[in-house]
C-alpha cells in the first residue's frame, strides 16, 4: 500500500451516516484515490446543530467541545464534511477562545480542561489549500469538461465573516476553484449564498419549498446542468424536496444536486458505482451519461 500524502482525523456528522451517506462514501473514495488519510473520530457525537444553539448555547458549545476532545485521540487536523457541523465546531472554538466565562461553564459541563487547539477544516479547505489545486488537477483522470456546475455555498460555509474563514463571506470562489480544477465549467448565478430553508424542512416544510425554489430557479436561469453542494441539509432540501418544490411552484427543474466529492471523485477516476448516484432522488445518471462521464 502506498503512503498517504496527508492524514486527517475525520468527523462525518450524523447526516453522513444516514440521509447523506453518498457524501460520506464519495468522500472516502475521493480521499483514498488522492492518498489522503481519513480516520474517523471514535464515538463522536452530534454537534447539536441548529436546534442546540437556537435554544441552549451552553449545550451547543459543550457538545462541540466534547467532540474536539474526542478528536484528540486521532492524529491529524479535524476534517469535517458537513457545513453545519463545520460551522458549529468553528463557532465553538471561536466563542470559547473569546469568552472566558463561557469557557469556564463548558469546562464544568465536560468535567475536564478544554482542548481546543486542533485546527478544524472543511473538506474544501483541505482540497484547495492543504492538498492544493494543482495537485488536484494532476489527479484528474476524466475531465468534467462540458459539465456546467452551479456551486451552491448556502449559509454556513462562509458566514459569519470572522468564524469559518474559509473564503470571502460575500464573494467566495473556493468551490468554483476546486471543481474547475477537475475541468468542469462553473456558472455565474445569483443565489449561491441564499438560505435553502435549512432545518425548517422538518417543522415548516413550506418555508423550504419557497426558499429552495428560488435557488433552483436561479440555477436554471444561469443554465446550470447540476448544482454542487457541500452540506447535507442543503442537499436534502434541494434534492429530496425537489419533486415537492416542482409540484408547488409548477416548474420543472430536474436539476441533479451533487455533492462536491461525488463530482471530484468521478473526475479523479473513481467508478460511478461507488459514488451513490443511485441513492439520489433526482438521478444525475442521465446527465452524466449525456456528458460521457459514466
Amino acid at each position, binding site marked *: 500500500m502506498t503512503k498517504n500524502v496527508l492524514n486527517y482525523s475525520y468527523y462525518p456528522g450524523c447526516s453522513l451516516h444516514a440521509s447523506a451517506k453518498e457524501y460520506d462514501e464519495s468522500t472516502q473514495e475521493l480521499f483514498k484515490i488522492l492518498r489522503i488519510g481519513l480516520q474517523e473520530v471514535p464515538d463522536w*457525537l452530534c454537534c447539536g446543530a441548529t436546534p442546540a444553539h437556537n*435554544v441552549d448555547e451552553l449545550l451547543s458549545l459543550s457538545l462541540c467541545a466534547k467532540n474536539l476532545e474526542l478528536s484528540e485521540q486521532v492524529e491529524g487536523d479535524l476534517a469535517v464534511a458537513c457545513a453545519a457541523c463545520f460551522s458549529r465546531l468553528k463557532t465553538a472554538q471561536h466563542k470559547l477562545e473569546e469568552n472566558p466565562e463561557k469557557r469556564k461553564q463548558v469546562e464544568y459541563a465536560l468535567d475536564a480542561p478544554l482542548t481546543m487547539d486542533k485546527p478544524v477544516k472543511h473538506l474544501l479547505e483541505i482540497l484547495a489549500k492543504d492538498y492544493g489545486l494543482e495537485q488536484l488537477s494532476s489527479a484528474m483522470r476524466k475531465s468534467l469538461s462540458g459539465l456546467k456546475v452551479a456551486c451552491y455555498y448556502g449559509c454556513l460555509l462562509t458566514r459569519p465573516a470572522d468564524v469559518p474563514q474559509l473564503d470571502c463571506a460575500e464573494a467566495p470562489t473556493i468551490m468554483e476553484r476546486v471543481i474547475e480544477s477537475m475541468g468542469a465549467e462553473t456558472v455565474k448565478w445569483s443565489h449561491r449564498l441564499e438560505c435553502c430553508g435549512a432545518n425548517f424542512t*422538518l417543522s415548516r416544510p413550506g418555508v423550504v419549498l419557497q426558499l429552495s425554489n428560488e435557488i433552483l430557479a436561479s440555477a436554471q436561469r444561469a443554465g446550470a446542468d447540476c448544482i454542487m453542494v457541500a452540506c447535507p441539509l442543503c442537499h436534502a432540501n434541494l434534492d429530496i424536496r425537489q419533486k415537492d418544490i416542482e409540484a408547488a411552484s409548477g416548474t420543472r427543474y430536474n436539476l441533479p444536486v451533487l455533492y462536491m466529492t461525488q463530482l471530484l471523485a468521478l473526475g479523479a477516476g473513481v467508478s460511478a458505482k461507488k459514488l451513490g448516484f443511485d441513492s439520489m432522488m433526482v438521478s444525475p445518471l442521465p446527465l452524466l451519461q449525456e456528458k460521457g462521464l459514466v
Partner: protein
Amino acid sequence: MLQNKNSKMTLSAETMNLDFVKKVEKLSGSSVRRCFQCGKCSAGCPMRTFMEHPPNRIVRLLQLGQYERVLAGRSIWYCASCETCSTRCPNKVDLAAIMDALRKCSWDAKGASKESLVQLANRLFLDNIRTYGRQYEMRLAAAFNLHSGKLLKDFMLGPKLLTKGKLKMFHQKNKNLQEIEKIFSRIEELRKKGEAP
C-alpha cells in the same frame, strides 16, 4: 396588557425592561443599542416573509425593552440562523446571536411563544442527542409527526428514502452515552446553582 402587536406602547422607566435587554446582550455577546435601524438585516433576511416582526423590528422592540412583544411573537422561531444579518450588519450587531439568546429566553419561559412546531422539533432533536448521542432522522421525523399530530406528513417520502438507503430503521447507540448524559446533567446542575444562564 398587550392587546395585539400594534397596540399602543407606553414608555417609562417601568415599562421599559432594560434588565431583559442587558440579559440578551450578555447571552448574545452583542450590543443591542448599537443598532440604528438601517434595516439591512430585514432587507436580506430569507425568512422575512414568514415573520410578523422583521429582524430590525425585533431589535427595535428590544431597544425599548418590550420583551413581551418580542417573545409573544413567533418571529424569533422563524429565524433560520443563516447569519446573513450578522455578516452584513454595518454596526456589528450580531443579530443571529441575539435571536439565539431570545429563543433561549423564550425556551426557558416555557410556552411564551405562539410557535410550537419549531420548538417541538428542537426538543425532539435535543432529546435524541441525550438518548442516542447522534441524530437518527427516521426517529426524529417519526417522533415529530407523532407529537405534532401530523401523522401523514411526508408520508410518501419515507418509503422512498428507505429504499434509497437514506433512512436507517435500526441504528446503534454511542458507546460513550454515559459521558453524554453527564454533560447534560452537569449543565442542569450549573443552572440550578445559578452559575449558568
